[in-house]
């Protein structure tokens, strides 16, 4: 089974795939890339079974265009934004008003949901215009990470999941308050009906699946089936 996944969720999916393969016996091939690109590829007939997008816009479009299995769209994770400053320990949001950085890396707001969230956050603090000359835009959140990781940008508004994946200590990032940007809702859709695809969709929404997703630095949507456990929303 071929699963197309947003770059930011590649590592979590790979770890999920391990236990999924053991439990269900279906083999998963992970194809990661930018959500916009994969959306275009799906329209051109790419042979993907399941699509885990970085946003809800592309899955919604696919649903409207009748390209998905009916009622298969669901939210699997909610991204969290963090300010990462590898050379300046214990950053607060005041860091962005200082002159301690030449470049702030973000994902391109026009293409990537984490970039849009970064823009909304900066706008909410009236920093979007003043920081224009310091903003460098990566094609996606992974490229923004490369800009910071290579030392070319001193700070970045990145995905918390990336920082956890790279074992970055809590001392070097500041978790942006969730009310400062519209939720980064990451949705999945099933593109082709098969037992394996259904099983993966169920697995991602199961308790054990959700536990793993939360460990990777994502918040979780409230459960669809109201089983009085609606408190699993981690923030």
């Amino acid at each position, binding site marked *: 089974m071929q699963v197309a996944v947003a770059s930011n969720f590649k590592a979590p999916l790979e770890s999920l795939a391990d236990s999924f393969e053991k439990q269900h016996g279906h083999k998963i091939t992970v194809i990661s890339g930018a959500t916009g690109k994969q959306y275009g590829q799906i329209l051109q007939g790419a042979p993907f079974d399941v699509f885990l997008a970085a946003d809800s816009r592309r899955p919604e479009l696919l649903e409207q265009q009748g390209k998905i299995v009916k009622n298969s769209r669901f939210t699997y994770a909610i991204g969290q934004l963090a300010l990462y400053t590898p050379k300046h320990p214990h950053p607060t949001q005041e860091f962005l008003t200082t002159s301690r950085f030449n*470049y702030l890396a973000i994902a391109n707001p026009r293409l990537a949901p984490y970039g849009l969230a970064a823009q909304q956050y900066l706008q909410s603090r009236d920093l979007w215009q003043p920081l224009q000359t310091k903003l460098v835009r990566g094609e996606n959140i992974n490229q923004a990470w490369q*800009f910071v990781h*290579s030392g*070319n940008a001193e700070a970045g508004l990145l995905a918390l999941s990336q920082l956890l994946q790279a074992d970055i200590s809590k001392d070097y990032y500041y978790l942006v308050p969730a009310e400062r940007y519209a939720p980064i809702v990451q949705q999945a859709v099933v593109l082709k009906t098969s037992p394996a695809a259904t099983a993966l969709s169920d697995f991602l929404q199961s308790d054990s699946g959700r536990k793993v997703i939360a460990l990777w630095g994502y918040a979780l949507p409230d459960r669809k089936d109201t089983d009085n456990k609606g408190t699993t929303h981690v923030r």
Partner: protein
Amino acid sequence: MFADGDLMALWLTLKLAFISTLILLVLGTPLAWWLARSRWRFKFLLEAMIALPLVLPPTVLGFYLLLALGPDGPLGALSTLFGGSGLAFSFSGLVIGSVFYSLPFVVQPLQNAFASVHPATLDAAATLRAGPLDRFFTIALPLARHGLLSAAVLGFAHTLGEFGVVLMIGGNIPGQTQVVSIAIYEHVEALDYGAAHGLSALLLGLSFILLLGIYALNRRFKLVSP
């Protein structure tokens, strides 16, 4: 027809191609002359290094440049030494990247042209007491002028279409590092096919006209020479 941002990207691209070509001609001409004349047995090492960008994906070059331009990399350290703030995300960084990236497109036609200048002609000039610089500027360079022209146009056209290197080290800053190819990529990814078509068609036309010029000239020169 074009948005302001697109015009800015177009202007930046032309500026980048022009400056890079100028630098490449200044650096590439003596290099090509030396390569064409030298009998050094390890010359092939240098030739292979210069030809690398022909086969390497630009992202490889861009990746190493990103590391080299960073504050811990050699080029970046050099720039911070002179009070700069690193070379990535700057126009200067793009120029450095383009010079590496387009080097073989300038050096190879020049080298071929210089190689076709007959040594006897130069020897004859030497017996008439023309010095090395004199021989180079009044005999070799005019004889190799079609190579010079091809080198300039190829270098310019190749830089015009540069993408991978800029994607890796540019940071997509409008007016500073957002070149046409990056702007097109962004339009396509954002599903704005209209804007992508406009810029793409323009670049296609421009590149074709440049290459038409080269091939027309080549033909003329072939007709002239026996």
